[in-house]
């Protein structure tokens, strides 16, 4: 009887806390987080459009907010989130066709997603600043 009360060390299925990190699981989580961020970020687009439609004073106010250091961080972050979600989505569309599902392809596509999103974010802001004559 005493033996039955002894705690048996049963194997547990692996979960996030003890799972060795893989690039594709990070990209999967980031895809969901960026999606949720973009969801709230549509308010930025709405605010900008409403400001332009409302008049010069509202437009100037929104520009001041967007030009604030916090505003800039949010806008650059929003650009990256948009591109990260876009490239992540492309990856998912490819997977939907049943292609690119070998482990090495999954890993390569996941790395490509993060590299492409960062590179294009830099390119977009670089082009914008260049056109403004800042760069």
């Amino acid at each position: 009887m005493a033996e039955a009360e002894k705690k048996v060390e049963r194997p547990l299925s692996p979960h996030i806390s003890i799972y060795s990190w893989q690039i594709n699981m990070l990209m999967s989580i980031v895809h969901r987080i960026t999606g949720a961020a973009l969801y709230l970020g549509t308010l930025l687009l709405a605010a900008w459009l409403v400001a332009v439609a409302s008049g010069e004073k509202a437009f100037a106010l929104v520009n001041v907010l967007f030009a604030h250091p916090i505003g800039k961080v949010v806008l650059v972050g929003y650009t990256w989130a948009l591109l990260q979600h876009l490239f992540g989505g492309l990856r998912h569309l490819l997977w939907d066709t049943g292609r690119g599902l070998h482990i090495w392809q999954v890993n390569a596509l996941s790395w490509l997603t993060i590299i492409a999103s960062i590179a294009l974010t830099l390119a977009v802001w670089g082009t914008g600043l260049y056109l403004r004559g800042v760069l």
Partner: protein
Amino acid sequence: MAYRTPLARVRGLGSAKEGTDHFWMQRLTAASNLVLVAFLIVLLVRLAGADYATVKATLARPQNAIPLLLLVLSGVVHMRLGMQTIIEDYVHAPGRRIAATMLNSFFAAGVAITCVFAVLKLSFGG
């Protein structure tokens, strides 16, 4: 052993009676968002630092207003479906889940109508 009737099977709509509608609309709007988001980024980069009159005139042009309207519609359908999935994954209490699902639709509709109203006002409001 299948308990479903042959008619239910051939309709393929499943227990939610929506079939693959959620899956398909998410992919359809993903494809349209690809093109429309690229358009938005180019438009915004071109407008970087532009004065009020230029921004207003640019957004009022049909070749910019129409893609913007398409982006808003395609975008909110996509984001509403995405947030619905997140809610279904994480919000389990029935009351909170219904409330969150409703708020999700209200938010998407609110953002859509606000953006559409602003773009149309720029085009037609003078």
